[in-house]
């Protein structure tokens, strides 16, 4: 068996698992067993593929044995293999967390049978997006993961989730329509949707048409990745989902958009006139996102805004468009998937131990649960970019790329990224000190502390806070029912273990940052030279 035959497995295995878990919908234990097996197998395949692409260059499989340029190609190069590995890991660990949460809440009989199949379809969609070798297959994978995310986001169908879900669904559908229009335009102009063929044919078409198509694709992926003018939907919808769902959304879904931007920008439009636009969008995303994060009283909302903000760092690297910049951007994507997932999982643990994720209602968690304090502290500092963590290393790479570029926009971005980093530190440190170090609120006292925040005095607005609390904590089968006081429930070992695994992985990324950076250097070089990719897909058309 050759390596190429492994390519469809990360998509097929979860889909098969989804079918089986649907069949076994009345047997939660069987569902758990199937989901774990399938996702562990996908992780194994991803490891093998990463080793394979590193060893022998891009791996290509034409599905259904169609002759070469006609069929659908799955392609794994260094970038997709890395994305696939990290996403498989995150998906598996978050599943363990979700199982831990469900078992601890005694949900075994509640109507959650739809969770596992949907989650597996989401996983298949994400893997397919990373492996897609043509634009239409990319569209189909987006639809797979979007539909799965629609269901997961509105799980339980409570009022706040339906409201958040509506915004998310409509925004996603508009971007899907735009994607279809872009694909129609690309097919009309070039007669193909295969990305390797497009990279050969797009230079020959009218530059104006090419620019219009590029702008359309950037808008589509910008909506998915929550780039600034199109980012408003994200902090609105993610926090209302159950914790394991928002963790995997925050970690993966926006990064799929960023991956699509990288893929199309460097493979299809290498001579892009839009690099400056991307850098400006990156700067605005960073600053506006982090200003939103600073103002948030809820941990999950704060994290959603930092998620938007840090997408800007990746755009920075992509916009600089040098090998150094792209390499740092890829490193940053890998780092950010892990850290963001870790923080969302830990916000779930905080919710469990403290009974809330609004920092006004939290306090004394460091005494209640020292493990949780450490678990929060490490990824929080990592996100803010404190040495020696991977966030710092990624940011140094980006700043280095910006300085090497030397243009006025690049320098502005360097300054902007440092400011954003400091504001991120402010936002997470505020949460850290209020939730963990402040003395704990007395039982039954209505409002306790005046909190000097950049937003006005929340102490006198307990009713309004109540609205936000209700918004952040909808009562649903998968998350525990709302409790306004601190409850001190023990953390189930599976949840704790899953969250710790992600944190340990993030420390691993910091320790092995050297080898990882040399890998992303190679990946960036492969993306920028394009030869290896195109030659692997179309051996006959390229000399």
């Amino acid at each position, binding site marked *: 068996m050759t390596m190429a035959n492994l390519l469809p497995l990360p998509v097929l295995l979860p889909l098969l698992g989804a079918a089986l878990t649907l069949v076994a919908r009345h047997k939660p234990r069987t569902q758990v067993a199937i989901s774990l097996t399938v996702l562990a197998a996908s992780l194994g395949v991803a490891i093998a593929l990463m080793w394979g692409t590193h060893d022998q260059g891009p791996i290509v499989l034409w599905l259904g044995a169609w002759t070469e340029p006609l069929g659908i190609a799955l392609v794994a190069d260094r970038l997709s293999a890395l994305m696939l590995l990290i996403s498989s890991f995150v998906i598996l660990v978050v599943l363990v967390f979700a199982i831990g949460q469900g078992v601890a809440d005694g949900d075994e009989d509640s109507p959650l049978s739809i969770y596992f199949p949907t989650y597996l379809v989401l996983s298949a969609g994400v893997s397919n997006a990373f492996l897609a070798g043509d634009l239409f297959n990319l569209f189909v994978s987006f639809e797979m993961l979007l*539909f799965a995310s629609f269901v997961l986001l509105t799980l339980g169908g409570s009022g706040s989730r*339906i409201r958040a*879900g*509506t915004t998310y669904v409509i925004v996603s559908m508009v971007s899907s*329509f735009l994607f*279809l*229009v872009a694909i129609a335009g690309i097919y009309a102009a070039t007669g193909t949707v295969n990305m390797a063929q497009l990279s050969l044919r797009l230079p020959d078409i009218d530059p104006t048409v090419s620019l219009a198509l590029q702008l359309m694709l950037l808008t589509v992926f910008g909506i998915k990745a929550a780039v600034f003018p199109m980012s408003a939907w994200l902090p609105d919808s993610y926090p209302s989902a159950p914790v394991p769902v928002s963790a995997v959304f925050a970690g993966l879904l926006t990064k799929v958009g960023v991956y699509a931007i990288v893929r199309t920008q460097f493979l299809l439009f290498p001579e892009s006139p839009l690099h400056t636009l991307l850098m400006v969008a990156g700067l605005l995303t960073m600053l506006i996102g982090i200003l939103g994060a600073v103002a948030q009283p809820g941990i999950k*909302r704060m994290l959603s805004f930092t998620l938007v903000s840090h997408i800007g760092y990746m755009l920075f690297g992509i916009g600089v468009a040098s090998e150094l910049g792209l390499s740092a951007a890829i490193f940053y994507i890998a780092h950010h998937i892990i850290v963001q997932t870790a923080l969302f999982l830990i916000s779930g643990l905080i919710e469990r131990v403290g009974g809330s994720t609004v920092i006004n209602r939290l306090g004394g968690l460091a005494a209640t649960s020292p493990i949780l304090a450490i678990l929060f502290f490490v990824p929080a500092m990592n996100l803010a970019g404190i040495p020696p963590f991977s966030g710092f290393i990624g940011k140094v790479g980006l700043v280095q790329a910006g300085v090497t570029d030397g243009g006025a926009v690049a320098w502005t971005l360097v300054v902007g990224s440092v400011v954003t980093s400091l504001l991120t530190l402010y936002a997470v440190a505020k949460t850290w000190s209020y939730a963990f170090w402040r003395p704990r609120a007395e039982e039954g006292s209505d409002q306790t502390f005046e909190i000097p925040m950049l937003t006005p005095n929340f102490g006198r*607005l307990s009713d309004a806070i109540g*609205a936000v609390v209700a918004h952040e904590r909808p009562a649903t089968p998968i998350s525990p029912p709302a409790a306004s006081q601190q409850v001190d429930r023990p953390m189930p070992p599976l949840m704790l273990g899953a969250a710790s695994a992600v944190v340990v992985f993030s420390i691993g990324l910091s320790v092995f940052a050297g080898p990882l950076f040399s890998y992303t250097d190679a990946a960036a070089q492969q993306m920028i030279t394009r030869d290896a990719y195109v030659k692997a897909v179309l051996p006959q058309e390229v000399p």
Partner: protein
Amino acid sequence: MNAIAPSLTLVVVAGFLIAAGVYLLLERALTRLLLGIVLASNGVATLYLVVSGPAKGAPFVGARPTEEMSDPLPQAMVLTAIVIALASVAFVLSLAYRQWRITGSDDVPDDAEDDLIKRLAERDEVSSTYDPDTQSTTTADEEDATA
């Protein structure tokens, strides 16, 4: 590649459908959003008819010379797109129904966070470290004075 000029009628139809769809997507009621999705997706599907060029014979291998065949690829793509649009319609319909069951109307309600910010603006509240200006006559001051 299509050397033949695209059909203007189809382009106009597609443009009209998408424009009407976008107009409806800007509405607040979910049922209208649903109709907007239906119209826009049909408009996008029509674009694929433009792309596939004039209608010709069925593309079976060996049935006729290649020049007389329709381009099958856009048709395959548009079929996929239509199926996905159908699923979208089903999902939005269920969202609208659920919304109606919960709130009694299918309008999308306001965001709680927006509400909070609006209330803050109405009260004109400031940070606790801020030294208040005694001369101003905001509503918050009036409330404080009457309290």
